[in-house]
């Protein structure tokens, strides 16, 4: 196992890293502390009834926004990973992890009841029974803000593209525009407009599907809207962190606006490893499904519904059709 041997040194160091891996520990502010100072959610300067009011206020404060050119627009090139957030602090009281309890008075009665059931499943059954992503729905907003995998952020004067390779997921930010909804319905990422205030990118997202933040988070309704302030900050030890101060409005789910901070760090470890983002899609590369007990489960090789992500081909008679040309392996299902 020569390749394993050659990776031994990296592996030993990586065990430590794994413990604080942002993939594993992305949910509480203190867990993002390994990359820059602790995160802290900032409430808006005053209370707003809607995200529109909030956004217009910020736009007026910025005197219509900074008109960047290609030469001046802030560049956030490179690969980014999630780097903690204060997300659960907005919804859970008490110590971190499973020891906390759902905070009362944040969510409307119906959404609070639903959240308490999700939290009960998390504690008593060890996991919420099902995650909609398991059948390949996109993360959507607001889940985009805390979903791991790899991110890219591309800024241009008229548009910004906020990309997660999950799916992939792309939030398109139209700079200096008004909201538009020609489809006349809602969607996973809705419609996002924005403006620049110096090096801060301010966003307003609307027309979103009802969804959830994560398995251990509250549900959101089709009236969920957000105002976000994105800014790249630099800290000692070459830490570059894009910090997102987000305020959420949802008349069905929240009793009043909720403010949370999210963060992404430049993934220098992935960049040093010469990592490339590969296009991938969920439908043919996952075997998760909802079973007849209402619990997530897997199709295994040989079972009906199994997707062989590296082996499937509709043209086995042709050479070179396997998706696993390097090792060219075949999964032989167990005999019944």
């Amino acid at each position: 196992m020569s390749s394993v041997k050659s990776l031994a040194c990296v592996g030993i160091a990586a065990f430590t890293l794994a413990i604080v891996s942002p993939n594993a520990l992305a949910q509480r502010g203190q867990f993002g502390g390994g990359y820059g100072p602790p995160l802290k959610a900032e409430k808006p300067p005053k209370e707003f009834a809607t995200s529109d009011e909030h956004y217009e206020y910020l736009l007026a404060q910025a005197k219509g926004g900074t008109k960047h050119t290609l030469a001046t627009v802030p560049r956030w090139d490179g690969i980014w990973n999630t780097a903690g957030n204060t997300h659960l602090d907005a919804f859970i009281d008490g110590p971190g992890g499973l020891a906390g309890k759902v905070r009362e008075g944040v969510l409307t009665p119906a959404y609070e009841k639903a959240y308490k059931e999700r939290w009960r499943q998390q504690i008593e059954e060890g996991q919420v029974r099902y995650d909609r992503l398991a059948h390949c729905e996109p993360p959507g907003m607001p889940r985009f803000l805390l979903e791991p995998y790899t991110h890219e952020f591309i800024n241009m004067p008229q548009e910004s593209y906020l990309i997660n390779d999950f799916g992939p997921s792309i939030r398109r930010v139209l700079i200096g525009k008004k909201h538009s909804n020609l489809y006349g319905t809602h969607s996973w990422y809705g419609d996002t407009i924005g403006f620049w205030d110096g090096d801060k990118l301010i966003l307003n997202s609307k027309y979103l599907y009802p969804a959830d933040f994560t398995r251990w988070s509250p549900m959101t309704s089709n009236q969920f809207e957000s105002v976000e302030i994105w800014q790249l900050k630099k800290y000692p030890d070459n830490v570059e962190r894009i910090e997102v101060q987000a305020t959420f409005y949802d008349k069905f789910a929240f009793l009043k606006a909720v403010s949370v901070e999210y963060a992404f760090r430049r993934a220098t470890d992935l960049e040093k490893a010469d990592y490339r983002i590969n296009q991938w899609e969920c439908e043919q590369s996952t075997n998760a499904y909802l079973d007849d007990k209402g619990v997530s489960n897997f199709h295994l090789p040989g079972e009906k519904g199994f997707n062989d992500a590296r082996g499937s081909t509709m043209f086995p008679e042709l050479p070179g059709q396997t998706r696993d040309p390097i090792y060219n392996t075949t999964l032989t299902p167990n005999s019944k």
Partner: protein
Amino acid sequence: MTNRSKFLSVAIAAGLLVAAVAEAHHSFAMFDRNTEVVKSGTIVRWSFNNPHSWLYLNVKGDDGKETLWSFEGSAPTGLIQRGITGDTFKPGQSVTFMYCPLRDGRPGGAIGWARAEDGTYLNPADGGCNGSKDNIARWEELLKKGVTTQTQEPKEAKAQ
């Protein structure tokens, strides 16, 4: 509570905390994370794929018959940060591994740690099983005593 059970409780609580906050595209409810089992097998395929990696192995049963087992691991971006790539596990290699089984008893589960023939331990785990450095150290001691299965009591973890 004995020292051993205290240690176990802390380990379980730590494991649950990490697992609870681990992000993936699906719930881990199908895995019995309170049970950890060690087996050896021959690698058939290492699918270094998003949204999760999968390690497929042939495992020989007591009757000598080989069964294909399937184990889910973390996403590639998380694994690369631990030094694991698409070339780390190759078909035909022998490996000893720890996993948390599927609750329904089919041949599969969530991978915890894997030990190569040269003794190198790797952690390809996601939130479904605990492949941490601490858990590897615990298992090194258990394996010296001939233990290959650990069933832990979730009630103790909840009490933490």
